[in-house]
Structure formats: structure tokens, C-alpha cells
């Protein structure tokens, strides 16, 4: 058993499952947006904001946002452990990714509920 404290769930299976479930959420969200854009060719500001004013859409967006955070972390963590061998650089990379995801999530919540 290889132990690692920086991985997302510390269990390979858990990380793997989270990666799949978040992927599913993100995939659905992407398809949802694509369908919305394609079915509203002349999209204007009102259509766009009213879409995001609906509670179900807000919840969906929030789910996608959290999924994005987890998905990116697990993916990039595994990238960092594959290619960045010196501990210092790897840790730095992980800190940057972690900070970025934190900022994105705060930013996302703020813009979803802020308008």
C-alpha cells in the first residue's frame, strides 16, 4: 500500500470514483449549455440572466462548480505525481493548483449568487 497525504480522498478507489462522478456532472453541464446556446441563436442578456436566475439552474451550476474543483484537483494531482519528481516543485505545483481551485470556487459562487 502506497500512502499519500496530498491525494484527494487518500484512497485510490475514492479518487477514481469521484473523478468519474464529477466528470459525469461536468459532462451533463457542458451538454446542457451547448443545447441552450444552440436552441437560442440570438441570445440576449435577459434570456441569459433569467436562465441563471432559476434555482434548479443555480444548483446545477453550483454542482458543476464543486465538481470542477474536485475533478481538477484529482487530475492535476496525478499529473504532478507523474512528471514532477523533486518534492519541492511538486508541492509548489500542488499549492498553486489548490489555491487556484479555491479562488475559482469562491469566484464562481460569488458570480452565481451575486448578479
Amino acid at each position, binding site marked *: *500500500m*502506497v*500512502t*499519500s497525504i496530498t*491525494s484527494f480522498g*487518500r*484512497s*485510490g*478507489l*475514492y*479518487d*477514481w*470514483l469521484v473523478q468519474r462522478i464529477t466528470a459525469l456532472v461536468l459532462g451533463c453541464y457542458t451538454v446542457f449549455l451547448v443545447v441552450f446556446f444552440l436552441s437560442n441563436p440570438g441570445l440576449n442578456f435577459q434570456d441569459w440572466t433569467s436562465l441563471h436566475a432559476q434555482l434548479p439552474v443555480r444548483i446545477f451550476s453550483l454542482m458543476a462548480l464543486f465538481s470542477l474543483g474536485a475533478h481538477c484537483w484529482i487530475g492535476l494531482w*496525478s499529473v504532478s*505525481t*507523474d*512528471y514532477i519528481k523533486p518534492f519541492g516543485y511538486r508541492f509548489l505545483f500542488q499549492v498553486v493548483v489548490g489555491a487556484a481551485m479555491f479562488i475559482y470556487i469562491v469566484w464562481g459562487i460569488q458570480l452565481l449568487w451575486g448578479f
Partner: protein
Amino acid sequence: MLNVSIYRYHPEQDEKPHMQDFQVDTSGKDLMVLDVLFSIKEQDSSVVFRRSCREGVCGSDGMNINGKNGLACITPLSSCVKKNKLVLRPLPGLPVVRDLVVDMGQFYKQYEKVKPYLLNDTPAPAIERLQTPQERAKLDGLYECILCACCSTACPSFWWNPDKFIGPAGLLQSYRFLADSRDTATQERLAELDDPFSVFRCHGIMNCVNVCPKGLNPTRAIGHIRNMLLDRAT
């Protein structure tokens, strides 16, 4: 005349490895790569490689043949030579001892990690432990592994984490014991595997399947292990 280019490295003489060219007269025959190596060793006895059974069952002569890992003794020239050129390099990713001989230590260590032996905590009967043909059939495609390391050394995940990712060969053997109806240590075995490196570095790129000289499928075995882990956890 066949042009052969061989990876040379002698720890007592060379700072760095280099490629050396040889010409081999194959008399137009479709020799095996190992036969070509024997001719080269007659030209230059300092060329070093491993070999034993010469029929593809001992797994000694795994090497990178024109870019693809395989056993020299069962790779005919017709299946690998292009433009009359044969390039032989040691198995990728493992430290080179000399020429085509790599240090397999890391590979064996990963094999040993999966406890590749039958564990059964019930008292042994006076005869064999019974097993139906159907139960036995689950071991087909698993027990035939010859530990040549062609698969693991073709796996990028193993290149990047040879000390942490068990690799296709080790995982195939891990599943060989998970699948054996005579083994009772399934839960303990699975518990040992549930970390982010041992199993889950497999990204299904299939290079192990692509190079396995015995036609085995480690990717599928890894999938089975994952399903067993999932089954155990949910």
C-alpha cells in the same frame, strides 16, 4: 546484409550509452531476433544480453525491438524489420546494467508486493484442494505470465512511478490470486491495493496488451481488480 543497431553501455568503460552498428548476414532467412544477436556475439563477444529457453517461455530476452518490447527469441525478423534495419535497445524505464541487460529489481519488487502466492487459512486436506473446471478457467490468461517485463516497461505509468505503481505484470498476478477459488486472503489483498498509486495509475492505454508476448491482457485484469475494490467498498 541486415543493418543492426544496438544500444551499448559498459559501466567500466562508458560515461554514456551509445548505439553501435553491425552488419549481419541472414542469408535471406527469416531468423528470430535472438539468432541475429548470436551472430553479433560471434563478431563481438562483448555484446551482452540475457537468454535461456529460446522458445518464449522463460522470459529472459525481453528487449525493445524496433521500438516495440518483445522477446527476441520469438520475434521473427519479418515481423519487425523495416527498411532492412533492426534497432535493439534495452527494456525502457529500468536502469541499464550493461548493453541490453537491465536491472529488473524494481520490477520484481512490485511483483513481490502483491504477495504472489496462495494464501489459505484453512487446514490443507490430505489430497488437493478441489476446484471445478469453471473456477480453474478463471485463471486462464493470468497464470501464463512469464515475468519478462515487456508489459510493465512499456507502460508510461510504470516509467513515471516504478516504485509506486505495481504495473501491469504485478497486477495481472495480483488478480491471478484474487481469482483463485483456493485463496482465502481476498479482503486483505484488496485492502493493500486501495491507494492512489498501486492500481489506479492504469489509464487503459493498452500498451501492455500490445506488447505481451503471451497474448495476455493485464488491462482487463486491472479492470477486474477495480470492480472487486468497488464491490468491496459499496
